[in-house]
């Protein structure tokens, strides 16, 4: 029993983190057709924001507002300044974000130095849940992630912004014929995606070591999760994240971490092959 509970709790934590990163990536990809290769750097940006907040003496919780605000501004600036010039060239936009990820890492290193930085645990202590020991702060992370994820999905489903976004997703040309100013929505979408990634960074920071290159580790699983879920389907992305994070935690103790990581990737490849349109799609659309 304890084993099952502990796997479930640990999986819930990792899935929350992967889902947050993937959700932002998925919103940007769905709307702009751009795989934001610098998305990991927005995660790092959020983590550094948390460091700046806590090291200035302010409470950690303030970082949960500061980080997404900084992320949103940075994301919008990136979209307005660079990505918007590449509207008809999504592939070039991917390449630009790839180059930017290198640039951002060096900027982080120049500003904060190469040494790892620490964000103190704001909620120390552990709980015992059905026999399993679990840190209080991890419960906090899971709850906050869930709130952010649900809010984002509801926002995409109910708000005017979300409705237009989904219209653009379904048919960009038709949407623009109907007078939708897709540039403004692209700007908002990029800002939203970056803000969610930055929250993820702020939530991760107290459980890890904040270094300039930390974003890269989160990009690959999130990237696979987005494709697994089917572009532009927030629920699918969530499922993709559950696949990547959940399987890894569940398998690690039994077949070893390395084999688990490789096996998860192999299973993901097979899943993408069998459901090219995403885990939630019908089995059709042979040409993605």
């Amino acid at each position: 029993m304890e084993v099952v509970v502990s796997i479930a709790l640990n999986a819930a934590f990792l899935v929350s983190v992967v889902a947050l990163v993937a959700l932002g990536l998925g919103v940007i990809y769905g709307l702009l057709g751009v795989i934001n290769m610098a998305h990991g750097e927005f995660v790092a940006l959020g983590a550094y924001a948390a460091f700046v907040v806590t090291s200035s003496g302010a409470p950690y919780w303030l970082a949960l507002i500061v980080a997404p605000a900084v992320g949103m501004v940075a994301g919008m600036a990136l979209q307005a300044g660079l990505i918007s010039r590449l509207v008809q060239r999504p592939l070039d936009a991917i390449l630009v974000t790839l180059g930017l990820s290198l640039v951002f890492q060096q900027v982080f290193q120049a500003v904060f130095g190469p040494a790892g930085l620490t964000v103190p645990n704001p909620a120390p202590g552990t709980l015992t849940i059905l026999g399993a020991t679990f840190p209080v702060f991890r419960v906090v992370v899971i709850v906050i992630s869930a709130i952010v994820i649900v809010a984002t999905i509801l926002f995409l489903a109910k708000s005017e912004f979300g409705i237009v976004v989904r219209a653009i997703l379904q048919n960009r040309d038709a949407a623009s014929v109907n007078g939708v100013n897709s540039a403004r929505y692209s700007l908002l979408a990029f800002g939203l995606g970056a803000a969610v990634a930055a929250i993820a960074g702020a939530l991760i920071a107290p459980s890890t070591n904040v270094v300039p290159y930390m974003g890269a580790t989160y990009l690959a699983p999130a990237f696979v999760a987005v494709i697994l879920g089917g572009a532009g389907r927030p629920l699918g992305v969530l499922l993709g994240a559950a696949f990547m994070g959940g399987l890894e935690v569940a398998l690690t103790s039994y077949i070893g971490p390395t084999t688990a990581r490789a096996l998860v990737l192999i299973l993901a490849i097979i899943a993408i092959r069998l459901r090219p349109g995403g885990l939630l799609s019908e089995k059709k659309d042979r040409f993605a």
Partner: protein
Amino acid sequence: MTGNMQRRDFIRLAGGLGAAAALSPMLAACATPAAAGGGGSTDGPIKLGFLSALTGLETILGATQYQCFELAVNQINAAGGIAGREITTIKEDNAADSKQTIDKSNKLALSDKVTAVVGLITSIEREAALTVLPKNKVPLLYTTYYEGSYFDAHACDPYYVGLGQVPNQQIDPLVPWLSDNVGSSYYIVGSDYIWPRGTSIRLAELVEDSGGKIVGEQYFPFGTTDFSQVIRDIDSSGADIAWVPLAGTDFLTFLNQYHQFDGKAKLVSIGMDDVFAHENPAAAEGVIASQAYFMSLENDANAKFLKAYANDYGADAPVNAIGVAAYNAPWLIKAAIEEVDGSTDPDKWMPAISKVSLDGPMGVVSVDPTNQNTTQANYIGEVASDGSIPVIEAVQNVTPDVPGCSL
């Protein structure tokens, strides 16, 4: 039809030309003398190359290593250089990448013609540099503790000196101390590569001999962000000791999460040093470390070294064994070259390097003539709440054991 004919002729022509073009230089090569070793000149400055990870994940280690190296070179130059000749340095980054290491090693050996190369962090960098430097007769002084000869690692060469500790030096003194003071059942959590796996083989031998037990063993890929499941496994195994040879950032992530989960087993790591402890003292507190150097060592050379280092690089900049070995390297090169009357011919001064010894910040060190690794002290310490590592036990003059290496 005509087109086809044309193309066929074309291919024949192309093939012929290509082969001729490629073969001619090969023939010419027979007449060219083999690559001459660098640094054989007898006057002018002595060039030393520094090669390590100055960008990428290992940057903090490479940067510390460089500063220590630079400090030694500055001190030697201020005191008159090597046999009256000034040292100049060439600093190169390998980004912890094998291909970049090969290119930069080629540059240092063939273009800059340095007298020796100092530096490198990981096994992949060391092995890559060793594919280039010895065949060009450029000595490599590697300053990181490593896995010795486990898994056919090839760090056994007349043009190679290992200044870091090999497994027997860090682990042999540690296991008996742990049996006396902590316990005898171990759970190993390492990064999945050659250093953790190699050193753990040595650990397993010693633990078995002393009647202890390895109760679990897991190796994680680089870039692991979550260790929660293995922390739970350590707890439920009831091990006395969590032995954690994790690398770089993953190590600190693990410490952080172990602290969050309030893990019970005592943490022991042969990778823990002042640089890591300094990054997150709260998470590192209480970890048992075993190294050739801690900043807390009390001797005159160390006091002078730390004062000079703080003066140049800031009062709160931590140093570790990798750095101090890089500080020792130019001093050893100086002593060896002066031992053979100032000759920079590597065939003369490299054999002399095992005849000299150095009393530096980590105590007395000397290069073992059998395997050209370093006889040095080992210190066991426990990380304090401020990130310093007071020494609990010291063993002087531990000889390096590199099975299969006899030069």
